[in-house]
């Protein structure tokens, strides 16, 4: 099941600097298991969304080409200290996870 993710948001000038670390194997479906020689089934995050106080600020798609335990950094102008930032992801098996933090 989905492991917890780490999220941090700090003010940098007039923008909130958001950093998210998601726990996910990000299997492309092209890699072979070293022991069995079988292909490891694809298992990667397909969709990421972020919102500030419930207003969407980022919607993203990913392929298996993003590294294992994906890192995502972005900056939101106009966000203030104390605003709530929520990040969600969905993977290709339908698994999902969500995390939130307040801007410090």
């Amino acid at each position, binding site marked *: 099941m989905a492991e917890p993710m780490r999220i941090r948001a700090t003010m940098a000038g007039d*923008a909130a600097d958001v*950093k998210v670390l998601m726990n996910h194997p*990000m299997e*492309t479906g*092209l*890699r*072979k298991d*070293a022991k069995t020689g079988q292909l490891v*089934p*694809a298992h990667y995050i*397909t*969709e*990421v969304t*972020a919102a*500030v106080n419930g*207003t*969407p*600020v*980022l*919607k*993203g*798609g*990913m*392929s*298996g*080409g*993003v*590294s*294992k335990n*994906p*890192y*995502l*950094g*972005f*900056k*939101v*102008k*106009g*966000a203030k200290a104390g605003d709530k930032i929520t990040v969600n992801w*969905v993977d*290709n*098996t*339908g698994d999902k996870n969500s995390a939130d933090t307040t801007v410090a």
Partner: protein
Amino acid sequence: MNALRRNVLKGATGAGAVAVAVAAGLLKPTQVLAAPRSAFEAKNVADALSGLGAAGAAESKDITIKAPDIAENGAVVPVEVTSAIAGTSSIAILAEKNATPLVADFDLMGGTQGFISTRIKMGQTALVRAVVTAGGKNYTATKEVKVTIGGCGG
């Protein structure tokens, strides 16, 4: 006894494959995303770009790609894309020689600046391409990253 065991095993893997296929089929591309899932499955850069609707994007010096010149480990290549183009509404990242070049695509809205930082896998030395959409137009920039150990395959 052994034959039965073999059949059971076969049956099990067969069912597993079907489950994966069903899960994949159920995941319809979301309307709101700029890039349809088909763009992510494209096997070459031209198809990925046309899937993004960004074929013939203009080269731009206002896009900065921050990535290492030489990546020792292709499984984790830090990439930062900064777009100084006003009204940047989406940023896509492609690794040109990967099996599926389109790595990620982000729609930015509600005050999010033209900046994305992430880490990608690269199978081999290739150009990293960023595609930025701003005001309905597409812009692009590239940076070569030399990979000494591949990140795809074993």
